[in-house]
């Protein structure tokens, strides 16, 4: 009897060591997570229940009023729709475009580094310079893009100033910014696929690129793809910079996205409490999205 109890205690020790190792490895990250994310979030949560205004000395407790207000705010609703449209363009474009490019680039030998650098360049760009550049490129009268359109017989388009084209244009610029980085992630993923699987597939007749892609590349790239999809989606939801610099929400509010509105509320209108509540709604929203996505995909992509 004691031997059994002892044995159980001993196995418990081993499990305990294993778990302690796991926790120990996660601990520095957890501590930083607590300090740099959770604590500030707690402050924010408190603020979201007050009518605090930036710079003010005191604030009143308002409970859930901010949340109620947010849910009924038409401007917020509009920005949710705009954000979703943006996400719906950027995620497929940024993920599958990058996948296509990565696969094509991966197969190059001599030109590989050349293409890699070119596609990576946008990642290195600073928005400060690039906003100016894009504005000129897309200039309806002076820009080269419209010059090409005109020469092809299309009319000129004020990409950034037409309510119908502004958001899609920002989305394309968003893809431009993301593509290179996602490509690199895919390239990293591709280099981790064992070569002998391609050899086996080649022998088995999965010889054309589509078959090879469907049989080997796509399934084995699963972990990378899942990561790229989730992070691209989150990045797209967090669209802010290009809006702030290039359209400032215009024309006519068609590029007002959620985070930009939160920024306006928090840093332009100084409704800190309300902005905090909006932030929480925003967070809940994308967290649910990404957690659901991550956990369903996670089961599928690991073998």
């Amino acid at each position, binding site marked *: 009897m004691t031997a059994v109890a002892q044995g159980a205690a001993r196995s418990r020790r081993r499990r305990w060591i294993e778990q302690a190792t796991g926790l120990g490895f996660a601990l520095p990250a957890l501590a930083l997570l607590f300090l740099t994310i959770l604590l500030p979030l707690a402050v924010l949560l408190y603020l979201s229940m007050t009518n605090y205004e930036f710079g003010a000395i005191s604030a009143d407790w308002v409970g859930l009023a901010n949340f109620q207000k947010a849910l009924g705010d038409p401007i917020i609703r509009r920005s949710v729709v705009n954000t979703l449209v943006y996400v719906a363009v950027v995620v497929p474009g940024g993920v599958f475009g990058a996948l296509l490019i990565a696969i094509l680039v991966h197969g190059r030998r001599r030109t590989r580094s050349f293409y890699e650098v070119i596609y990576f360049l946008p990642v290195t760009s600073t928005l400060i310079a690039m906003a100016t550049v894009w504005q000129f490129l897309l200039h309806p009268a002076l820009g080269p893009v419209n010059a090409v359109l005109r020469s092809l017989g299309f009319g000129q388009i004020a990409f950034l100033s037409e309510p119908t084209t502004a958001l899609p244009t920002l989305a394309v610029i968003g893809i431009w910014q993301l593509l290179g980085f996602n490509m690199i992630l895919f390239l990293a993923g591709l280099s981790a696929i064992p070569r*002998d699987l391609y050899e*086996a597939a080649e*022998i088995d*007749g999965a*010889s054309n690129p589509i078959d090879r892609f469907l*049989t080997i590349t796509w*399934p084995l790239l699963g972990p990378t793809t899942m990561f790229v999809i989730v992070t691209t989606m989150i990045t797209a939801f967090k669209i802010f910079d290009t809006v702030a610099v290039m359209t400032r929400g215009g024309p006519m509010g068609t590029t007002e996205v959620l985070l930009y509105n939160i920024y306006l509320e928090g840093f332009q209108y100084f409704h800190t409490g309300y902005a905090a509540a909006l932030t929480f709604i925003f967070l809940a929203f994308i967290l649910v999205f990404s957690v659901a996505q991550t956990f369903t995909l996670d089961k599928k992509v690991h073998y």
Partner: protein
Amino acid sequence: MHGQAENRDMATVGLQSIAKSFGATKVLGGVDLSIADGEFLTLVGPSGCGKSTLIRIIAGLETQDSGSVAIGGLGVDHMRPHERRVAMVFQSYALYPHMSVRSNIAVPLTMSRMTMRQRLPLVRLMSRSRREIMRGIDADVAAVAAQLQLEHLLDRRPAQLSGGQRQRVALGRAMVRNPDVFLMDEPLSNLDAKLRVHMRTELAELHKRLGVTFIYVTHDQIEAMTMSDRVAMMDAGEILQLGKPSELYDLPASIKVAQFIGSPAINLLPATVGPGGRVELFGRPLARAVEEPAGSAVTLGIRAEALSIGQADPGHGARASFSARLRRKENLGSEFILHFDLAGPDASGVTMRATPASAALVQESSEVTLTFDEGLCHVFNSAGRRLEARDGSSRNTIVSLKAWP
């Protein structure tokens, strides 16, 4: 796409001075080999001698540095692996980790039987003919799985299989196919003896049924001896000898081949050539004479089963004898391997096969006289080449057997 492949009715395989180096490492040094249609050729050779590299070159997975490969008489150097219509079992298995055993085995069938459209995800849902093809594929997979005793594992992923089970899946993936050439790289190495015997007959049957060419790499002497039409013995990227299995065993071209083929390894004893070309062992002349100048050193190779204990028995051809001391008996169940130390100053020993009954007759450390049939032994010159007997009288066993009824 397979236009060329369909024209070729004969799956001969021809290799012309195939050479290959990995960086500074020379792996193959100009291999010439021509394999007949429907032949079962086994490649044997020490670890790292280039067997896998050679069959990977035949499959088109590796590019030779020089030389050319022809299948069915047509050069295939420009063809991609799948165009060469070969099936291959990888030494490392190379199973698709994300697929069930069933799908792993089905891949080659899906690729060959379905159109691109039917294979595409989503699109395929709309294809009616697809279901029928699927049924055919499933039946074929089930049949192969039964041959491989994998029926109960069809829904597992490779990670959930034991080593031998994985190897069988790799084998199954090749066996379902109907290629021109089968390339198998140690396909049975991780299977137990019983299953191996079973798989040998299954492969032999497959070979008979399809009548296609097999190129087979193995380290198992029994596999090499029993399955092959011909065996190619490689060493350091060269083919040392190519011939019927019994030829390699009974008429090894060189000391290396003799040493490599046969287990326990052949016993090598130093000998000299005496007057008249007579070989002298431990100073005593034998009946065997060779075409070598007197005084040159030769090596006598005696197979473990050619030795026996006791006095020379004059009734059964020329027999020679020498004395040795039993060091150790090794019981293999069905027989014993006896290890003897030689009495002379030469410290090397000899091994001998014995039935349990005859092994029981000697005791460790006892001195015995070993005799051997001179007709069954080989003489190698100092360069390692086997020397034919000078006169026709004492040829090797295999030759004499052929002369029998």
